[in-house]
């Protein structure tokens, strides 16, 4: 059937999420200034299973599926969109291990301080694919190169690193490697970002690092990147909802020309449009998550992938637009850090760069609709790789 009503179990989880979300919202600036979650909030988030509820029990998750995952991500992000990021890269790491690695290797992924390194500072100048190279040496691979924007790299003990195995094969020559902190692995200094200030992003320099190949199967990598980006889209929905809520409340109490500014059509219609966008984005994210949970074959996965691409593009656009309009409708006050809405706007841009930007998601959706097999090039979050036509 077609139904849009979270189950009783979902509701219990969302209620708990909402409680934490309120606490997060009250301390947004403290989190931001501190550059990370205060320990009490961080442990509350971990206890709730933020980032791991959807993962299979085999990797230490709660096994609740992606629908539960996106519901919780939205609740938490509505409190502070930076939360999932401030917890570090563990959620992404566990997701990568559960999708890519063998069960033995993935066993305790959710409990490991891990990070995923896929981005690079710039595209390779001469060929498609990654600049970080993995070379086979006897029993393992040796990695050389530089990764960028790695979430939680500073504290991670383990890394899933994407690197080029075969330079002649473009994106089809990419593999995923498990790398441990140690010789030949160095995290560079944390970078300052436009938004998501509570999150620690830094680079990773690999100089002869030992890596274990966990997957060179494009299909598995596509699954990982799509789910990873879908969870990020759920955060976009949470962010958009938060920006919408504070804006709706503000324009209702702010008066001009003798009445609340909400009582002018130019204001009310903008708010109404964003309400539609938020509702639509949420429904798109729910449906994509449901399709992943229901997928049992390639056809099912392609449907989930198409739905994910649409959800990701819509949610990113919605988050950015809702936050932008939010600042606008706050007037000058919106520009001040006294109100949270300027932070939502900065976070929205930062969020949409993480995972899969809207422009990439559009090419992925078009490729599937035009009958092209969804390959890794379309899902990798690098500006130079996406085109529905190649």
């Amino acid at each position, binding site marked *: *059937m077609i139904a849009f009503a979270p*189950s009783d179990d979902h509701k219990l989880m969302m209620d708990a999420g909402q409680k934490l979300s309120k606490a997060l919202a009250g301390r947004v600036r403290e989190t931001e200034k501190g550059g990370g979650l205060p320990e009490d909030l961080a442990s509350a988030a971990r206890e709730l299973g933020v980032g791991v509820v959807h993962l299979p029990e085999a990797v230490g998750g709660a096994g609740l599926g992606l629908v539960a995952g996106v519901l919780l991500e939205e609740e938490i992000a509505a409190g502070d969109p930076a939360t999932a990021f401030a917890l570090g890269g563990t959620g992404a790491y566990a997701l990568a291990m559960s999708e890519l690695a063998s069960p033995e290797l993935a066993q305790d992924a959710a409990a490991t301080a891990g990070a995923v390194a896929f981005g690079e500072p710039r595209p390779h100048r001469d060929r498609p694919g990654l600049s970080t190279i993995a070379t086979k040496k006897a029993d393992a691979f040796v990695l050389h190169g530089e990764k960028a924007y790695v979430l939680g790299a500073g504290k991670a003990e383990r890394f899933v690193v994407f690197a080029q195995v075969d330079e002649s094969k473009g994106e089809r020559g990419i593999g995923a490697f498990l790398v441990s902190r140690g010789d030949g692995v160095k995290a560079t200094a944390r970078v300052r970002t436009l938004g998501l200030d509570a999150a620690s992003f830094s680079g990773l320099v690999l100089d002869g690092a030992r890596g274990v190949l966990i997957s060179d199967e494009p299909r598995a990598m596509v699954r990982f990147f799509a789910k990873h980006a879908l969870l990020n889209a759920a955060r976009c929905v949470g962010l958009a909802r938060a920006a919408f809520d504070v804006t709706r409340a503000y324009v*209702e109490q702010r008066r001009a020309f003798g009445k609340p500014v909400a009582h002018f059509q130019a204001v*009310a*219609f903008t708010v109404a449009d964003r309400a539609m966008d938020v509702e639509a984005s949420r429904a798109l994210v729910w449906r994509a998550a449901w399709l992943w949970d229901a997928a049992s074959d390639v056809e099912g996965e392609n449907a989930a992938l198409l739905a994910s691409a649409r959800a990701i593009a819509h949610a990113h656009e919605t988050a950015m637009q809702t936050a932008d309009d939010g600042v606008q409708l706050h007037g000058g006050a919106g520009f001040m850090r006294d109100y949270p809405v300027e932070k939502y706007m900065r976070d929205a841009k930062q969020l949409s760069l993480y995972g899969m930007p809207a422009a990439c998601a559009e090419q992925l959706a078009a490729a599937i609709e035009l009958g092209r097999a969804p390959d890794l090039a379309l899902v990798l979050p690098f500006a130079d790789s996406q085109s529905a036509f190649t």
Partner: protein
Amino acid sequence: MTIEFSLSARQKSLKDMVGGFGRSIIRPQSLQWDLEHAVPEAFLARFVEMAQSMGGASASWGVQGLGAAADAGDVESSKIGDAPSKKKSSAMVTSCIGAEELAWSDAALLLCLPGPGLGGPPVRGSATPEQKERFFGPFKDMSKGLKWAAYGLTEPNAGSDVAGIRTSCRKDGRDWILNGRKCFITNGARASWTVIFATIDPTLGRAGHRAFVVEKGTPGFSVGRIEDKMGLRASETAELVLEDCRVPEANLLGGEERYQSKEGFLTAMKTFDNTRPLVAAMAIGIGRAAYDYACDFVKENYALARHTARYTSIAEKLARIGRRLEAARLLTWRAAFLADEGQPNAKEASMSKASAGQAAIAACIEAIEICGAEGSIAKDHQLLEKWFRDIKVYDIFEGTGQIQRIVISKRLFPDLKAF
């Protein structure tokens, strides 16, 4: 409850059947009907027969079936959850699925289908049991002739501003005397009866409204001009004229006591909560037709292996149309789902209508853009230019996009009474 997005077996078979019939039988005639400004009655009769032979599913053929669906208590068991025996209605969602599919084939046909049409919901919602029997009765058996009903609200000077209608009614003995003009009435000329909204006193605003069932042939009730439209040309849109039209008091919808307050106006408005998701579903059907066509066109005519900037931008256009239609479809299903659950859905219904209208218009515009001049030519199986003409009114009738935003705004800002 649950979050779920799978069609039931019945919904799937309805979708397949309507889609298959649409592709092979309806589409090839679509342009001809448009040129002739009518769907032949013989075809409509055949269509009704076929729908009826599908048993209960006939309830789901879009707007015309809406009432039947609700009346039949179209239920199916919920397969999810810990109470499998619990019966859940999914009539509205099913109707939306059927309406989208039929509109994908030809939206004008859907509007032409015999049945109570938009006249159904107000009668269903407000009529006395005796009136329901009298007005719906003739529709039970159409083997001796097709029948329609209509909904007459809009006037030359009152469209979205429903409270501003000027068609008057005054009591005279056991009759009411109606005077005024109604315009843009779908199936207005062939309707056996039309729900006419009139006012006892324009200064009373909404409280003065009364709804009547005016039967064809009533003295003083006549058909004015038949409109010449941009699109949906196979659908009949008529002007109705009431000149000292004498309507028996038994035809006052719901009886006198129903109109103590704003009941008449609410009758008019309640109709929309039910029909807006269906109109949204139809818009999505047309938009999807254009989108599917553009996708096929690109697959067949563009060298996909060539990597050019223009192709990348075409891909982006397609993706944008596809996702906006999908977003609107989910908003529509959600509004329908709430209706099936018996929950208030005015805001959601307006959201579905507003987003679907715009998404589908964008789809039709972009599809022509993508196909180039070829896309603007009218010929067999090349219906882009027709869909472009058909779709525009979906952001206008049943409440313009602007009206939908007013409805949404009022629900977002409870203190907002009017702009």
